[in-house]
């Protein structure tokens, strides 16, 4: 059997694949986070909580209404995204023009409320969510065995990223988003309803987080703190990748996922700190982030 660093190839390939799956979660989450930060100038602490709400949404729909995975994948992002848009319109929008610390505090408060609420209703322990029937089983790749569901997660997450990229970079709605990100006041003077764009973007970012939550439900146990565990890493990724480039944050997220996976087998003690070591290095050497653009960091 082929070995790399004294490890069998199948172990390396397995960890790469696990890392890629995590990287996909990171990518969709950091995409939403970057979209929200760019337009609203708000560090959305609640991103992980909405991810968790997405996973719980899928679990609740199945448990109480018998709604299956595929419908959840469509409905949950819409429902949770609508809640996000409502939160922006009624509360977050009042903080426009104030110190960003207020937005951070409000969204952090929402994390505590959401996590506390779910804990109160459903307890702290995890709830299993079944892999949909169509995606059970494995693919035999020769050098490794790939569970179908994980392959689907990678494909679905990359599709979500590609669609978001296309919407932002190639459509007229995307041009309005970029314009409002760069010069909000001028953009509004042209007759573009910027406050509505902000609500829409926040809702879209939250919908992406909820979509990731549904994707993650069959892999991670559905529990109230599943978002907090993930979102810290996502913040680090946004810092490493820089705020300026969607493509950059996707690439960074996938790379970080894989690096984290490898570290687990090579030197598992460092697997949870390696990301923050990288973040510190990037901040020292390139404060704008690897792909950051001037003036957008």
């Amino acid at each position, binding site marked *: 059997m082929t070995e790399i660093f004294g490890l069998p190839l199948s172990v390396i390939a397995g960890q790469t694949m696990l890392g890629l799956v995590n990287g996909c979660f990171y990518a969709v989450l950091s995409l939403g986070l970057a979209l929200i930060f760019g337009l609203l100038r708000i560090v959305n602490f609640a991103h992980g909580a909405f991810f968790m709400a997405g996973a719980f949404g899928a679990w609740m729909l199945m448990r109480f209404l018998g709604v299956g995975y595929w419908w959840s994948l469509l409905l949950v992002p819409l429902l949770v995204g609508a809640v996000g848009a409502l939160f922006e319109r009624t509360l977050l929008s009042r903080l426009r023009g104030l110190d960003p610390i207020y937005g951070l505090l409000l969204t952090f408060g929402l994390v505590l409320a959401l996590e506390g609420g779910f804990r109160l209703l459903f307890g702290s322990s995890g709830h299993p969510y079944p892999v949909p029937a169509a995606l059970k089983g494995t693919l035999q790749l020769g050098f490794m065995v790939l569970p179908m569901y994980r392959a689907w997660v990678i494909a679905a997450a990359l599709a979500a990223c590609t669609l978001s990229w296309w919407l932002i970079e190639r459509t*007229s709605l995307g*041009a*309005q988003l*970029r*314009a409002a*990100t*760069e*010069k909000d*006041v*001028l*953009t*509004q*003077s*042209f*007759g*573009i*309803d*910027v*406050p509505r764009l902000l609500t829409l973007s926040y809702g879209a970012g939250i919908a992406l987080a909820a979509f990731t939550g549904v994707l993650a439900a069959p892999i991670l146990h559905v529990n109230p703190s599943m978002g907090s565990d993930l979102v810290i890493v996502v913040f680090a990724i946004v810092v490493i990748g820089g705020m300026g480039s969607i493509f950059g944050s996707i690439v960074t997220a996938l790379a970080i996922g894989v690096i984290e996976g490898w570290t687990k087998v090579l030197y598992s003690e460092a697997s949870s700190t390696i990301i923050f070591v990288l973040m510190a290095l990037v901040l020292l050497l390139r404060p704008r982030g690897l792909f950051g653009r001037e003036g957008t960091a």
Partner: protein
Amino acid sequence: MAEALLQIRGLRAWYGPSQALHGIDLDVVRGEIVTLLGRNGAGKSTLLKSVMGIVPRRSGSIQLDGRELIELPPHRIGQAGVAYCPDDRGIYATLTVRENLLLPPVVAEGGLSEAELTALFPNLAARARSAGTQLSGGEQQMLAIARILRTGARVLLLDEPTEGLAPVIVERIGTLLVELKKRGYTIVLVEQNLHFAAELADRHYLIETGRVVERIDRAALTTDMDRVSTRLGV
């Protein structure tokens, strides 16, 4: 004088605690070019921004064709048919030239089509796919004006369109403004270049420390150029 298309009464504006406009009255008749003259910091740019609703606080009355605008948010003022070209040109770096051109939504019929704009500004078509800020200063100014001609807005607020540009470009902008006036646009122009203003405008408002201190007719400025020029400190 005919009835004003844009009628401003008692307009005051503030940046935080400091007041920048102290009760401006101003009328612009349909199809006129009116310039705002004054030294740096007199409040000319603030006046344009106040009409657009993009200053922190303002009060008074701004009527467009009899419709009160002062309570509206900026995008509703844009949709009402007022278009603004800022003194820094406001070209977006993250948008291509064509995206910059097509960004402002059409708010009324009668705007120039993309084909007409291409004919008027051939350079912009040639560089359609470049980032907006890769254009030269003159081209950026052309783009900043071109993009508000597409929307059907009939009142144009132009903040120093000739600032920092070569004489040949300034001349082209002058020709363009004459052409726009012929097409019935109503233009309020902030201008430091007195000779440029004198050639183009129907009337002038002299602004000092946030107040209108003098209204000067076209003919009067030509005979009185020296006095006004001293007053402006140019």
